[in-house]
């Protein structure tokens, strides 16, 4: 009997332990959902530091309609399964607004829950077009879409009058999405795309691919994916004397690519959102980040900051904390934010989001290309 009793006690203990308390709503609670641990935690850090800063500054100025903002931080590890778990936890906590998630594959299942539960979500980092393509009322973003970035890159390539272009991607949602959009735009302009091929993310050996590119005699290579693989491709291409110019999306525009590719990173073309931290109007904000010992130059810091700010301004305009009314206000208004003027279309995408083509240098710096 003792044994069975202990089993019961254990079960009761476990169920009590995971029955998370729903606390009272004294303030406006904003959920921040992104990876704090796991392989992409470094991007998650950008998101959290941007959102925290916005909440701090808004509270310092007296909050929103007299109410203070309070952050509820959750860690989704960028895993779709964890994303659903933390989304439900945010529902528990009585949160009405969420800034997140980071990875598109987490944002997508989590947004199903938010939409169902009447929670407004603004993702500062997920670029998959699918997220806003489902007719949801409460889903917004403060970042451009893969389908916006692709054409920018492709148009720049077209202006360079390439003879033969190869488009490579890493067979992941982000990389393949952008690469497909680049290829389609190039083919519409009758550019000769001689190769469209996937690689395995996490692979190290690209010597066969490089040989293939050499054989195909390409003068431009577009790579959809992240910096670890492109860094290796650049380096191995240099080793094999492949004479082509490479181009990639913002996922490769990271100083880490220089540690891998070394000199071979010189001349790489990258499409990036304009460096918001270099804008005149943002200098006070940049200083505030630097005083905290944080780096505002990451691609998702100011987009997260903006997401929080938009929630606050939406609440002020709507004069209510009801997410549906705030969503309405966001769709109608246009807002002055650190990432520029923001106004939304019906789907919840920004009406314009600028991408700039940069040339990357061997010392990790970049210069804008016209």
């Amino acid at each position, binding site marked *: 009997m003792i044994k*069975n009793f202990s089993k019961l006690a254990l*079960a009761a203990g476990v169920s009590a332990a995971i029955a998370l308390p729903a606390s009272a709503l004294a303030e406006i609670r904003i959920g921040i959902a992104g990876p704090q641990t796991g392989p992409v935690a470094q991007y998650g850090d950008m998101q959290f530091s941007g959102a925290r800063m916005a909440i701090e500054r808004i509270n310092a100025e007296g909050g929103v309609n007299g109410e203070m903002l309070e952050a509820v931080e959750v860690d989704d590890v960028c895993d*779709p399964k964890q994303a659903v778990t933390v989304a439900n936890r945010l529902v528990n906590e009585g949160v009405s607004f969420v800034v997140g998630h980071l990875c598109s594959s987490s944002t997508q299942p989590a947004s*199903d829950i938010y939409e169902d539960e009447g929670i407004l979500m603004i993702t500062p980092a997920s670029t998959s077009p699918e997220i806003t393509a489902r007719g949801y009322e409460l889903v917004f973003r403060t970042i451009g879409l893969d389908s916006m970035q692709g054409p920018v890159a492709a148009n720049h390539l077209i202006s360079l009058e390439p003879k033969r272009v190869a488009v490579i991607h890493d067979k992941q*949602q982000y990389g393949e999405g952008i690469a497909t959009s680049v290829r389609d735009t190039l083919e519409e302009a009758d550019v000769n795309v001689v190769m469209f091929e996937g690689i395995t993310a996490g692979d190290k050996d690209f010597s066969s691919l490089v040989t293939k590119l050499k054989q195909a005699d390409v003068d431009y290579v577009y790579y959809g994916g992240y910096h670890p693989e492109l860094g290796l491709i650049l380096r191995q291409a240099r080793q094999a004397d492949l004479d082509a110019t490479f181009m990639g999306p913002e996922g490769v525009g990271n100083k880490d690519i220089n540690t891998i590719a070394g000199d071979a990173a010189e001349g790489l073309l990258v499409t990036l959102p304009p460096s918001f931290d270099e804008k005149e109007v943002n200098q006070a904000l940049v200083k505030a980040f630097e005083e905290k010992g944080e780096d505002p130059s990451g691609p998702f810091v100011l987009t997260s900051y903006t997401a929080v700010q938009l929630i606050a301004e939406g609440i002020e305009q709507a004069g209510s904390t009801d997410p549906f009314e705030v969503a309405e206000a966001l769709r109608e208004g246009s807002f002055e934010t650190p990432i520029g003027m923001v106004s939304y279309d019906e789907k919840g995408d920004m009406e314009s989001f600028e991408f700039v083509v940069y040339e990357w240098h061997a010392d990790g710096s970049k210069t804008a290309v016209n």
Partner: protein
Amino acid sequence: MVAAHNLKHALFCAVITLVISWPIMGLKLEAVGTQITLQGADPFTWIAIGVAALAVFLFQLFREAILGRLGMLKSLNPMADRKPMPQEKRLKLESIGLTLLIVLALIWPFFVSRGSVDLATLVLIYIMLALGLNVVVGLAGLLDLGYVAFYAVGAYTFALLSQYWGISFWMALPIGALLAALFGLVLGFPVLRLRGDYLAIVTLGFGEIIRILLNNWTNVTGGPNGIGGIPDPTLFGMEFGRRVKEEGNVSFHETFGIAYSGEHKVIFLYLIALVLAVFTGLVIRRLMRMPVGRAWEALREDEIAARSLGLSRTGVKLSAFTIGAFFAGFAGTVFASKQGFISPESFVFLESAIILAIVVLGGMGSQMGVILAAIAVTILPELAREFSEYRMLIFGAAMVLMMVWRPQGLLPMRRRQIKLSTGE
């Protein structure tokens, strides 16, 4: 003389400990700008390395004495020499306990928050998976490292059926499970004549191949974009969403005239998962006592003896493999429905490793142990977020330690224990 030898050995072990921990832990490669530099670790790490080396040194030096003490401790344990309860009494108590547990599980979700119920659904999915894998690994002794492939087959079957033909959860549930079982049968047929460790590698290969194919077959499976918009299960045509998504269905809250609450859906899904998990457990419990279950264990214990008694090796192994795959398909369908969105990244090797860790920690073959391990493995990282960083490290270490000290698991399978105590 012995002491001198011990001292030498202990010193050697301590040096080795330093060698394997100092460069990797003590010197961190950091990118500063575009250069890679070395940074020394913080003092805490240095102290930890030193303490570890010292501990190894002392342990090896006084190895005999320490092990002797540990042996004495074991005899102090009041549970150690406790006689096993009589068979009948134990079974009765066990069934009472299980019934109580199930009743508790049935009423519990109505009193706790949504997040907990959702987490509990995930636990139930893992219980189903672990019970299924337990048949393959624990009972039949076939190490399957690609179990997640069948899970993926179940999940993708439901997702694809609903996307292309609008088939509902209830129709897809048996189809998904049967298709997964069919996969098990087809894959199992050629590979099951391989020896244990080769089998492990081949199943690992199959798991990876299935994932890569799902990822590359973009036209059908959406490739890395996955499949979204997977419908929730319905209750006699009643939907749980705020708005009815499909023609001809009505919504649950309108039918009963109650206010909409998102919790209904979560609880309903939880109850479905609970029923399926109980079903899985009961079916496997029955099978274990049937001739086929005995045959699994016989083959695990001694293949040659079992074969000379006339058991068909392929037939018995194939049945275990297929049944395991069947329940993985079940779990996959529930998972797809809970997530509403699936992509190949949910079905990586790590997932197979976690399920295997659950089975190993719980005690291979033991149902109760596996259930408790599934609960522990899923909930602990949620309780302590700091722990989640170290989760896989601890799993790995636990798998090794379990194999070294207690290969029968935390809650070993009963029948085997009785057999041993009656003198074999």
